[in-house]
């Protein structure tokens, strides 16, 4: 029983990581119908930005929650800028071409960041400084670290925050309008370029926050770290219903729990396979995902 509860906690901590990244996927998809495959690599850039900032501030020797927040904010700002830049240079020029063109461009950007990252940062894994002193809380034999709690809390807050932005704010309304019909939104006087740039900035900032938080809990970072995590977060977004914000959360948690469940058995090394098996099944059986609604496209 204790083991089961512990595995549940493990699964939720892992799932929160996927959820945090899946939220960014889902948001960009929701507005642009573009699967931004470079999202996982922006997450990697976020972790590296945090790494360099934290080392510049020597936080490993002097852990502090306040400075950790400064580092996270800095990484978010850097990645927001990178996200806008990627959109401007890579996606906007092909926005009016077929959707396949955008998809291939996204894969290209992703490869550019991964292997460009290997050139700039080197291929060797680096170890993220401990910006916050690690603490473990034990409740009835179930252990959870403050870092895992933080990830879960941030994922939940971000989910509600995004829901609020999209549903209740002026920019959110513009995002929904752009999502519904880009040309019509433009005709109604919405600066769609700006809305899309904002979406990318927000999504990339979230990815950066995810990168820093995950690097705190799993301190090993390398230029290819966004590849597998990003793909699984993508699966999480599809599972929950891509385009749906609560769906991304739900999908992330489910993938996390599934992986943990499988890791606990003798088939632990198949855990990467399970995410992709889920992807295939969901695309075959319910392409809209659990919480997604199939939207008929007007031609």
């Amino acid at each position, binding site marked *: 029983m*204790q*083991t089961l509860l*512990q*595995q549940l906690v*493990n*699964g939720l*901590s*892992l799932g929160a990581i996927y959820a945090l990244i899946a939220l960014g996927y889902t948001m960009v998809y929701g507005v642009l119908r573009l699967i931004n495959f470079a999202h996982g690599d922006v997450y990697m850039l976020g972790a590296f930005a945090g790494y360099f900032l934290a080392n510049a501030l020597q936080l490993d020797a002097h852990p502090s929650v306040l400075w950790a927040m400064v580092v996270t904010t800095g990484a978010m700002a850097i990645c927001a800028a990178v996200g806008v830049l990627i959109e401007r240079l890579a996606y906007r020029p092909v926005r009016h071409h*077929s*959707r*396949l063109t955008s998809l291939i461009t996204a894969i290209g950007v992703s490869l550019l960041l991964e292997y460009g990252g290997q050139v700039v940062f*080197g*291929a*060797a*894994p680096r*170890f993220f400084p*401990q910006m916050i002193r*690690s603490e*473990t809380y*034990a409740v009835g*034999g179930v*252990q959870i*670290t403050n870092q895992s709690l933080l990830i879960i809390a941030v994922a939940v807050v971000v989910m509600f925050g995004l829901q609020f932005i999209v549903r209740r704010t002026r920019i959110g309304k513009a995002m929904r309008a752009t999502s519904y019909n880009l040309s019509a939104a433009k005709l109604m006087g919405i600066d769609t370029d700006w809305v899309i740039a904002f979406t990318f900035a927000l999504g990339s900032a979230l990815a950066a926050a995810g990168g820093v938080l995950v690097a705190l809990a*799993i*301190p*090993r970072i390398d230029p290819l770290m966004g590849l597998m995590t990003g793909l699984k977060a993508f699966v999480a977004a599809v599972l929950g219903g891509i385009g749906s914000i609560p769906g991304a959360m739900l999908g992330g948690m489910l993938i996390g729990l599934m*992986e*943990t*469940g499988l*890791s*606990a058995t*003798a088939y*632990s*090394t198949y855990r*990467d396979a399970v995410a992709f098996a889920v992807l295939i099944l969901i695309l075959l059986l319910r392409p809209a995902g659990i919480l997604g609604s199939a939207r008929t496209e007007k031609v």
Partner: protein
Amino acid sequence: MDGPVNALTPRRARLILIGALALAATGACERRPGGAATTTGDIVIGMYGSLTGDGASFGQSSRDGTQMAVDEINGGGGLLGGRKLKLLIEDDQSKPDEAASAVTKLITQDKVVAVLGEVASRRSLAAAPICQRYNVPMITPASTNARVTEVGDYIFRVCFIDPFQGEVLAKFAFGDLKARKIAVLKDIQQDYSVGLTESVVQHFTALGGVVLPPVSYSSGDGDFRAILTQVRSQKPDVVVVTGYYPEASIIARQARELGMEMPLLGGDGWIGDALKNGREALNNSYICDHYSADNPDPVVQRFVQEYRTRFAHAPDAMAALAYDAVKVLADSITRAKTTDGPALRDAIAHAEVAGVTGRLKMNDKRNVDKPAVIEAVTFKDGDVKFVYKATINP
């Protein structure tokens, strides 16, 4: 989806395929006898190693140890009547396929007379068949998987092998740590870890202990909580982590976070700079090592001193073994009086050199029989120290 304008038609695809096959065929035909024996000029030797990537610490330590030995030999007048050693170093980025191409390049393009490397058994296993095919002797400093030297009669090593290392770990766990039930975590992507796991399981069971079914992970994993939770529920006395240092450091941390306070045990794969990221969680761990830098033997101390002067830190076992591998090679070139592949091979097969890591006498399986040391891992002041505990003879 719009109709793609520039699609890959079946005809074009076929053309590309034919082109690729033609290229592959020319590559396969290119096979020249290696070990080109020259009689004048520098003696060119090659080293391949993981200077970057997951195993960067292994490659960098080996490079430093190798370079130091080469410089010493050249400073002492070179070999075969004043010919200098020229060392070429290739980075394999910690990838087996890159190791194979690095060695192919060293042999076919640079015409090296001998190859040194690798540390990780998986990469040595990828490169060894190439050295064997071209009849260029290869000496691996630190690949402990038994299969490496079984590739062929041109493949040698200067370290102990995993069947012995597993026995040492099993004896230490059973005898000194009084463990009766152990759990083993293995990295299924690494031949080294798989081989060492087999050996630990076999020897610990033979001593009368219980080994829980080994749990697998993969190189590059970061979240071990699920498998550790499962291990925790079975209450082992000791947990053996047979993989390499990048994962071992995170496993140690997450194990302690889950409240697992039992001793952790590792093989020589734990020896790497990044192990220090395990921090305080590393305390109460032990490893099996090739040598101890604290050994008062003057041969060891002279090496440690000179290495420290040059690189500003103590040499780890990978540096010491790489140094020894060069010494074995140099001694063999001197005795063979030539750099010709088959003659050099025969000389290495009869090598007997007093190395930093012990006496290096090649046996008929092209391995050396050497003692191992057990060291306690301690984390203090931001760095890892290996404290000598015991020497165990084969």
